[in-house]
């Protein structure tokens, strides 16, 4: 008796799995439409538009966040005196090199106001061979706007410039891949 019941449960559940997987696919398109309508104001909560800023990077080029609309952005905050930041940087470089299409932009904002001086920053960049953009937050205003209290802190932005995730602590290449692939 129980044996028959178990068989029935097994069979019904298996049929239901097949059914839900087909229905789920049809629903997906409507779901994403609902989400995209919830465009928000500027802020630091998930789904809000990331605050804009303009800084100068390590090559003297101007970096404005809003210029990167249409691309996913890994917005990282770091300093040379922070061991987990140093450990994270080679992974970030690897991710950058393995993403030649450039649909994900890395902006690794250096907390220049709190760092150990221009020379220390440059020698670290050269030592690890970092080639992505490193905007220098010389006044500390951007770090303050993003409420960065511990480094590394990373905001993952979608193509609309909205905050999709905030990660405190170092990320490896796989986390960067997972995080950027899971968003629009």
């Amino acid at each position, binding site marked *: 008796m129980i044996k028959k019941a178990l068989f029935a*449960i*097994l069979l019904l559940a298996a049929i239901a*799995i097949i059914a839900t*997987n087909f229905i789920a696919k049809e629903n997906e398109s409507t779901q994403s439409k609902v989400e995209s309508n919830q465009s928000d104001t500027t802020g630091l909560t998930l789904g809000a538009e990331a605050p804009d800023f303009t800084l100068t990077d390590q090559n003297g080029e101007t970096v404005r966040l809003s210029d990167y609309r249409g691309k996913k952005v890994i917005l990282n905050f770091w300093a040379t005196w922070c061991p987990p930041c140093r450990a994270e940087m*080679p*992974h970030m470089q690897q991710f950058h090199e393995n993403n030649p299409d450039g649909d994900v932009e890395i902006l690794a904002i250096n907390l220049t106001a709190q760092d150990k001086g221009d020379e220390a920053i440059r020698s670290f960049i050269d030592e*690890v061979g970092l080639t992505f953009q490193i905007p220098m937050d010389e006044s500390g205003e951007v770090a303050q706007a993003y409420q960065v209290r511990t480094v590394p802190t990373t905001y993952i932005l979608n193509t609309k410039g909205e905050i999709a995730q905030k990660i405190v602590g170092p990320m*490896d290449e796989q986390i960067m891949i997972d995080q950027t692939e899971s968003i629009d």
Partner: protein
Amino acid sequence: MSYVPIFHLTIPSIWVSVLIAAALTSFLLRFALKEKTGDWLWNAVSLYILIWKLSYILFNFENFLEMPLSILYFNGGLYGHLLGIVLVIVYLTVTLIKQPKLANQPVFAWLLFFVSYQAVLQIFENNVLEAIFHSLLLIVSILAIRYLVKRADVPTDLLLAALFTLELLIVSVFAPLISWQIATLVTLAVITTFFYNRFTQKGQIV
């Protein structure tokens, strides 16, 4: 993917869920089987975590040489996970061949572990409805194991297959069904069930 803030770090909630689920499994298995959970469970969990964490050195050797401290922050990722699972399987095989009596525990443990893992994880992810479904199935599974396992007319593999299919149904309603997690689980299910059936046939499990 959600994160749990612990001190100044954010830890992916899946890893916190793994630890909580392992602790829960140890406790629930004892209730379901009316016997003490063996050391094998924590040995397997520790072995897995150690391999998963340390395999970072293997897969990121250059990064590790440059910054040995990075082992504190990173892990072996998917390859580390697969390596960890392979070694856990080797460990279980060796242990069960030595002590066939133990085989009745892992065969239920993987199911209880996965269902409690899902329940805890969905609480972290704030998916209340999904968490409730997993929790209900967890209760059903524990009671089913406790009251049906000794009955001769209820084949253990059928019982486990029915419960596991129900769990897959819950998972598939909320997320893609095909994943490394599910693949891992099916592998563990097949291997532990193989040992269980073999030792039962030989009369080594009462």
